[in-house]
């Protein structure tokens, strides 16, 4: 079967290492898995080096080391998306829902 998770994502080390429990990835909530998939898929889709995201993740963690890992992940994702010109802060603001969509 094909594996959409590149090694450079799976094997990140240092502060950017993915949270794991005994080797298995841990998502505390569904949105965290979503944020994870978005970053991996976007980098793949645009054929960017994984470092383009990873460096932002490291920076976001450095900004506030006590922040939960996937909060920093989401901040890094937003920063990447905006800096690539794919959207703007305003457009994101407008698209931000107030309620969770029904499943």
């Amino acid at each position, binding site marked *: 079967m094909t594996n959409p998770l590149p090694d450079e994502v*799976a094997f990140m080390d240092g502060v950017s290492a993915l949270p794991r429990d005994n080797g298995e*990835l841990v998502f505390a909530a569904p*949105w965290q898995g979503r944020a994870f998939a978005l970053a991996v898929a976007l980098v793949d889709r645009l054929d960017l080096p994984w470092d383009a995201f990873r460096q932002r993740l490291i920076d976001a963690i450095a900004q506030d080391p006590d922040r939960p890992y996937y909060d920093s992940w989401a901040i890094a994702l*937003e920063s990447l998306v905006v800096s690539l010109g794919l959207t703007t802060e305003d457009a994101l*603001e407008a698209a931000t829902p107030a309620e*969770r969509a029904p499943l």
Partner: protein
Amino acid sequence: MSHDHDHGHDHHPEPLAPIEARVAAIEAVLTEQGFFDTEMLDQLVSHFEDNLGPLNGAKVVARAWVDPDYRSRLLADGTAAIAELGFGGPEGDHMVVVENTPDVHNLVVCTLCSCYPWPTLGLPPKWYKAPAYRSRAVREPRVLLAEMGTELPDDVEIRVWDSSAEVRYLVLPERPSESEGLAEEDLVALVTRDSMIGVQRL
């Protein structure tokens, strides 16, 4: 949160944490621009949750099926032969490959914790870490395998391999008889994670 929250099956809208809302916004914007569709992201997420990790082991197995010399090297020194394909690392330091035959079936467990060769097998499935699997794989492997959908004839010997921090095992499954003539890259797709742990025969 609503009062009768039942693990994601709640159909009532719920208030969102700002960070969660922001991720939803990013997804909405990128989806609208046609980068992804929701279904593709759903699939990706469930793949990460259920079956995460590089299934490099499948490439190792497929190579062993098509190349007898590689197979010999793999069985003689798993670590070195796996490294030939570029896989290795701290959790795959000392790999031992055990071969299934018509008479012998191999099963891998880690009775103490959940040692697992994740450079080759990706990340362990949840059941691999469950106390029930860890104890029953040793005590009653035949019953356990049958419950997991693999019924072995009584004359097939089951060998159970207990992984540790020092040694990690990988099962080399038998090549399915209907796979004659397939190219190596197509064989890779036939190799499942479970067959390399030994809870499934191909």
